[in-house]
Structures are given as structure tokens and as C-alpha cells.
């Protein structure tokens, strides 16, 4: 997508902002407070956006009208809130479903030891609101899935600092569902730009997504290879690594021995981890495997990703810069994916991720399912979860048969799962499905159902 198109979209976002009203909140801007920001917005330069008109209005938008949503108040979220607030944004909402843990304190700097146990979103908002005059951060101690269309629609830009691909895909799907088309043409004012940041140890990335126009999260799903889990036979009978011993204790021994009654394993409970640690050591001793430590045990059980303050600072800065650029149209935004790595020196790489023509999230094209009529429903289920471009977690498949809505298989509700389980062993023909039949699939990775078209092969 070339710069001209990006330019167009940013201008639309700005004009949308111009139309929205805003209330004045004077009184807390001392002399010279926004000088550093003014210099960007009130002067032209060789690097500014071709359509940029320096004026005092951009600063006004920033301060009074522009509404930003920050998803996540963790490592990236704290940095993002700080950056946005210091750049002049005042109407900020933040969503996070977590509470503060001691292990957050090495980088989530809006939190103090006394805050452990409190909701991240609330403590973060309190901190910013009390330290940065004029800034109003509204916290939401919720899952993103608990909020609906009407909530997300109110924002000009959404920036994510999430730690889960599923959540990213859900957010991505939500913004795509807000798009409106007139006679098949996308209405630019229905686009909410999504800036997505991710970090892992010393690596990170930032991307700019204009839903419906540029590559979305699902277009580049292959960039996130599926998590590798150890094969069950290795865990059960042929362990070689300390990790295999830990998984044995977690997956096989815990459900069998139920050491704390019917409670499920809680990675944040030190007693639970201690139990897994001890069982893992026993298992390791049996096979002469060395290397089981408490730290490793916790890491495997909680799937811990190492993290430091610096990577979060870098990626959040890159994201906040993009928010600023788009909100003010002062510079051409990132087009559209930045990769960062500081293991050896400092490495950054920027490229344009391409849209996928038949993307299951943003292409509006019904997805193709090619199976023979003799295939079992189980095979379709496996395809949906294992295919690299789909990577669904627990898809629920429904269709319309004889004018009525029929659930073919659904995992998330126990009674329905039991009732529909026999369908998995039936063939598509036996289930009454025909060539060209549309299947609607729901999954945690998307807020909307994905439509598939069944294409019978020989």
C-alpha cells in the first residue's frame, strides 16, 4: 500500500476528529508546557506529511478531542500511558483484566509494592491522573471481550500492548466488524487505526494496521508460529529434558493425584508450583535427568516469557510515536511493520506486511473448505485448529439445515459438547451437508463468526 493511500486515510481520521466535538479543559497548562509538542505541530519541515498544514489546531485536537484506547496496562501499557500523557493526549481509556504481581515491578513502573493485588488498569489510571495535570485516564478492569461495539467505536485510535495472540486477533476482528461498506466500497471514516506492539525478551515489534485497508493480524498469522508443545509420548514414557519432567507432573500427575482437592493448577500459587517442582525432581531422578529447578518449573507451568524494562520502553515509544503521527497527520505513519532486536548491537527492520487476499478475518471472502463427502467432521475440526493461517483454538461449528440453525459441534459448553460429540465421527454426507454449504464458525480468536464454504472434492 503506497504512501498516498496512507496519507488519505490519516486525513480521514483527522477530519473525523475535527467533526467530533470536544470540551475545553483549560487551567492546567502552565506557560511553555507544550512547547516541545508545538514545535512539531506549528512548523513545517522537510520530513512532514505532504498535506500537513502547520497550525495551532493540531495541538488543540490532541489536548481536547482525541480519544485513545490503550489495551493492556502491563509492561507496554504503563510505558504507553506515560508516553501518550506526556505528548498531550488527555482522553485516554485503558483496559486490563489483570491484578498486579510482584514480578511486574521490574518494569511496570506505575505500580509500587503496596499495589500488589490491585487491578492494573485502576492503579495505572490513578498514577497518571494524579501526576500529570489535566490528563484523564479512565480504567476498565475487564477482559476486552467484556466490552462491546459501542465501547470501541468511540475511539479515534487504539493501541495494544497485549501478551496473547488470541487477544490480538479478537481485537483485530472487533475493529474489522466496525467497518462499514457502501456498495462494496469501504467508508474510511469507519476505520479505527490499530497500533499493535509486542515484546519478548530483547525482541519486539510495532505495527500499524488500518483495518480493511492494510494487512491485519490474521493476514500475517504465519509470522507467529504455533506454540510448540511436547508430544505426549515423550512426556509419558520417554522424557529427556527437565521440561518433559515438569510437563509430566503438570499434565498427568496433577489431575490424577489432585493434591489440593478439585482445584486446578494455579501457576501463581507458590504451593502448587512447589508440588510440581518436587514431583518433577522425582521424575527426573528416575531417568537421570539434571536441570530441574524451581525457576524452570515456574517458567514451564506459567509459560513465562522473559521481560525487561528497556524493550518495553523502546516498543512503546515506537507505538506512541505512531499514535502521535496519525492523530496529528504531521508525519507519514509507519508503513507498516517494524521489528526490533538488541541481543547483538541494535537491529531494526521495517517492511510492509501485505494483505492476504483470502484472509479469514478481513477479506470478506467466505473461506474455502475442501473435503470429500466421506470425510468426518473431526477432520474439519483438526483443519481449523492446525492450519497455519487459521490456528483456531476451540471452534464451534454451526450451519443451516432445512431452514433451521444446527450446531454441529461446540466445545465450550459441557452439555452441548457431550450432545454434539458423536457428530465428530460422522461423515459430512451423514450429517446432511451438501456441496456449497455454508458453515459458520465461532472461536475465541474472533468476535464475529467466520463463514466457510464447503467444497466437495472427489
Amino acid at each position: 500500500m503506497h504512501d498516498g493511500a496512507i496519507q488519505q486515510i490519516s486525513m480521514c481520521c483527522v477530519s473525523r476528529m475535527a467533526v467530533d466535538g470536544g470540551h475545553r479543559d483549560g487551567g492546567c497548562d502552565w506557560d511553555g508546557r507544550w512547547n516541545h509538542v508545538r514545535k512539531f505541530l506549528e512548523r513545517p519541515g522537510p520530513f512532514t506529511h505532504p498535506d500537513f498544514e502547520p497550525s495551532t489546531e493540531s495541538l488543540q485536537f490532541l489536548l481536547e478531542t482525541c480519544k485513545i484506547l490503550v489495551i493492556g496496562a502491563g509492561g507496554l501499557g504503563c510505558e504507553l500511558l506515560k508516553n501518550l500523557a506526556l505528548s498531550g493526549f488527555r482522553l485516554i481509556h485503558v483496559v486490563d483484566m489483570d491484578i498486579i504481581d510482584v514480578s511486574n515491578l521490574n518494569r511496570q513502573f506505575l505500580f509500587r509494592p503496596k499495589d500488589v493485588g490491585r487491578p492494573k488498569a485502576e492503579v495505572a489510571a490513578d498514577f497518571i491522573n494524579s501526576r500529570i495535570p489535566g490528563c484523564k485516564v479512565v480504567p476498565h478492569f475487564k477482559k476486552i471481550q467484556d466490552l462491546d461495539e459501542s465501547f470501541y467505536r468511540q475511539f479515534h485510535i487504539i493501541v495494544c500492548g497485549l501478551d496473547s495472540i488470541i487477544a490480538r486477533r479478537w481485537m483485530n476482528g472487533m475493529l474489522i466488524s466496525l467497518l462499514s461498506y457502501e456498495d462494496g466500497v469501504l467508508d474510511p471514516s469507519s476505520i479505527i487505526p490499530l497500533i499493535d506492539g509486542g515484546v519478548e525478551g530483547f525482541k519486539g515489534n510495532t505495527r500499524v494496521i488500518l483495518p480493511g485497508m492494510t494487512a491485519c493480524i490474521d493476514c500475517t498469522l504465519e509470522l507467529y508460529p504455533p506454540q510448540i508443545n511436547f508430544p505426549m509420548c515423550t512426556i509419558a514414557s520417554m522424557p529427556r529434558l527437565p521440561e518433559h519432567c515438569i510437563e509430566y507432573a503438570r499434565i498427568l500427575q496433577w489431575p490424577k493425584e489432585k493434591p489440593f482437592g478439585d482445584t486446578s493448577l494455579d501457576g501463581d500459587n507458590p504451593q502448587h508450583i512447589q508440588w510440581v517442582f518436587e514431583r518433577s525432581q522425582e521424575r527426573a531422578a528416575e531417568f537421570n535427568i539434571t536441570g530441574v529447578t524451581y525457576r524452570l518449573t515456574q517458567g514451564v507451568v506459567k509459560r513465562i516469557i522473559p521481560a525487561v524494562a528497556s524493550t518495553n520502553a523502546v516498543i512503546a515509544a515506537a507505538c506512541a510515536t505512531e499514535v502521535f503521527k496519525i492523530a496529528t497527520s504531521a508525519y507519514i505513519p509507519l508503513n507498516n511493520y517494524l521489528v526490533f532486536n538488541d541481543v547483538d548491537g541494535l537491529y531494526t527492520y521495517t517492511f510492509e506486511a501485505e494483505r492476504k487476499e483470502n484472509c479469514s478475518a478481513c477479506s470478506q471472502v467466505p473461506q474455502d473448505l475442501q473435503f470429500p463427502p466421506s470425510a468426518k467432521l473431526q477432520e474439519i475440526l483438526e483443519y481449523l485448529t492446525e492450519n497455519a493461517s487459521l490456528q483456531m483454538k476451540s471452534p464451534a461449528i454451526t450451519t443451516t439445515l432445512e431452514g433451521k440453525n444446527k450446531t454441529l459441534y461446540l466445545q465450550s459448553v459441557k452439555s452441548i459438547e457431550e450432545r454434539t460429540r458423536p457428530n465428530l465421527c460422522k461423515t459430512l454426507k451423514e450429517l446432511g451437508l451438501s456441496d456449497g454449504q455454508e458453515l459458520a464458525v465461532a472461536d475465541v480468536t474472533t468476535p464475529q463468526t467466520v463463514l466457510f464454504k464447503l467444497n466437495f472434492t472427489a
Partner: protein
Amino acid sequence: IMAATKASKEQKYDRQLRLWGDHGQEALENAHICLINATATGTEILKNLVLPGIGAFTIVDGHTVTGEDVGNKAQAATELLQELNSDVSGNFVEESPDKLLDNDPEFFHRFTIVIGVQLPESTCLRLGSVLWNASVPFLVCKTYGLLGYMRLVVQEHTVIESHPDNALEDLRLDQPFAEFQNHVKSYDLDSMDKKHNCRLPKNYKEKEAFRQFIREGILKNENGVPEDEENFEEAIKNVNTALNLTKIPSTVEDLFNSEQCNSITSQSPSFWVMLRAVKEFVHNEGNGSLPVRGTIPDMIADSQKFINLQNVYREKALQDAAAVSKHVECLLQSVGKVCKNASFLRVVRCRSLAEEYSVDSVNKDEITSCMDNPDSEMVFYLMLRAVDRFYQQHSRYPGVYNYQVEEDISKLKLSVNSLLQEYSFNNFCHYVLGSAAQEAIKIISHQFVPFNNTFIYNAMSQTSATLQL
């Protein structure tokens, strides 16, 4: 109380301990960092060092408050930063670095690293020279609009644990050591090297033939159809990466040939002593190869066989390390690490600021070749140098006040021209801050490799470049 503090520190730092280990954390906690100029930039860098738990910091700043810098005076900054981590002790000195150098030239010698933010060129040069001679690493940082700049100034920085991404395994399949050969003989397989005179398959054709050779080893069932043998499939898949030649990387060869390695004295830092011992090993017990690393990748096998194989490599590694330590009088732990990381040892040497700035030694080649590419970040480097020049002449930065902008543009052009002329060039035009902290951590912990020596980040295009100037 000691145990409780230690436990809570382990919890707090858990996520970063998984990156640089307890010994890396210890190095951080023993460090005393100096920040010069508590600007927004400076305090942001320091925040990213205080959070991971450096031992102490000292802020040096002789400036007063303006409207933009929300309370960022040395004292206020110190208090705010200390709030972030009660394990860290903070101090401040309300004095300019130039004054300090006048009155107490050895003031800066006590620090593990000095970070200078928005320093004028003359102060950089003066301080740079003092720190160079005192062997104190110096990190220069500047932000200017949407540009970020970092320059690392350190004479010699050694890295044992560089933690490379995607390193090849050290399996020695081309030069199996005696113990490995004996171990293999205990299996009921034909020896692999009979056909090709102990040479590994080199090109695609040979590797395909090798894969076919493996395939033929798969058991067949009654109908002559090969069984589903996972371990054979895995072997075939890994032919490319497992069959690499055992050789000493050129980076390590260069270190072996360097003067520090060959003239070991009682003053030599331990890194060079150990490196020399490794070199001696290579020429003796190692028969031309580095000490065996001792780790093998996980592979499909039954537990007993895998553990036994793993132990063969582990024991060889211990043996080699013992041989190296005979050449050395150092802590056994350090030697073990040097052996395990022998392929990945790195040394970073930066040019001094004096060399960079001086007309006689400026890196003209690097600058001119970059300028051939119109999108190169080099243009920003020159611009930043010109901005420094401007400051030198007019005692302020260009464009601070709106009414100055027009006039300053032409003055700045003059600065750019004077810089270019001096270097006789005929042809001719919040992120860095997180990075700055991490580079400082690399210097302090001696883990991971720092950049060498200039880093420019352009937030407008979200691109960056590392230049050696």
C-alpha cells in the same frame, strides 16, 4: 530478613533473571552509574536502569527548571527515580560537568559507566578523553526532535556470554572424539564414515545422497514399505544443520592473533588470560579445535540412550575445560563459561571521540559511502554535529523560540557547511532511550554484545542505522 529480601528480589526480578542470570544481576547491583543532565531524556534512560536494580546512581546537573521539563531538576529527578525501586540508592550533584572536571578531575573515575545526555561537543570531547584514559565506558546520548543518537565510547569491552541467536550445534560429527566413537560403536549401526574418507557431505547432491542413505536404514515391514520411524525422519530433516564443519570462527581467530592474547602479563585482564589458555588448548589437547561445548539438541530417542549420549558430550566438555584450566590460574566457574562460549567470545573496541571528531582521523570513507544513498541516516549524524557546532557558536540550540526559526535555518546551514568543509566533503544533507539503558546493562554485565559505535534512530521513518565512526 536477609532471606526474605533475597526471596522478594528473586520474585521481583524473575523476568529479567531469565535473561541474564543471577551473576548478571549481581553485576548490575554492584554498578554505580553516572547520568549527566537530568533532562526528560536522561531520566527516562535512568528509569530503565533503576527498574532492573542497579546498585546506585549519581545525577550531575547544573541546570534550572523550564516549562517543558516537568520538575526535572537533579534533586527532584533523584527522588522520583528512587521511588521506582527501593533497592537502588541515588545521589545528585548540582554542578556542571565542566566545573567538576575543573575542580575534581578524578570525580568520574568511580563510576561503572557514565551516560552523558545533550552534552555540547566540547564537553563531550573533554569528558571523553578523561574517561578513555580512566577506562570508564562513556555513552553519549542526544535526542533532537524525532531523531535519536547514541555513541558508545569504550576502548575495549570483552564479552564471554554473547548469547547468540540461532547458533549451530557443536556435534563434532566430522571429527568424532574418541569417547564419542566408542559410544557409537556400542550401537548396532554401520559406521558412517567408511565411504567418504571421514568427510562430511558437502553440497546439495551429496547431502541428498546422505539423506537417502539414512532412509535406507529405516526398517521395512512385510510388504517392503518403510515403517513410520520418527527418529529417522528427524535425522533426515536435520542433515543441513547437523552436518556442519567443526572450525574456529574467524572472530575467535582474530582474537587469538591479537596482541592482548599473545602478550599476557600480570596486568592482563582475566578475559585475555583465559583466552590465551583456550588458544594453548587448541594447539595441544584440542588438536586444532576449541573445547567441546558439551550440549546436544533434544532429539527423538528413548530416555536412557539420550542421556547416555548427552553424558558423553558433557564429560568431554568437562575434560576439555579441565585441560584449559591447567593453563590458567582463575576461578573454575569463569573458565567453564569461557569454554562453553568459546565460539561466541566477542570483543568490542570503539574509536575515541577525539579520533571521530579530528580532521586527521575522521572516518571519511564511511561517511561518503553512506551519503551515496539518499535515505541513509548518515545525513542526520552530520546534522546533529552541525547542531552541536551551532550551540558552540551561539550558546543555544537552533529554533528554541518561534521568532528565531527563520534566522536559525540559515545559521544552521552555515554550521553544516563549515562542518562539511572542514572534513572536505565535496558532495552533499523515548526509543533510543530504552536502547541506551540496555546498552549500559550490556556494558555492566558483560553479557550480550553492545553496538559499535554510533546508533541513529529516525522516528519519522522508524528506521535506524549503526555506524562505525
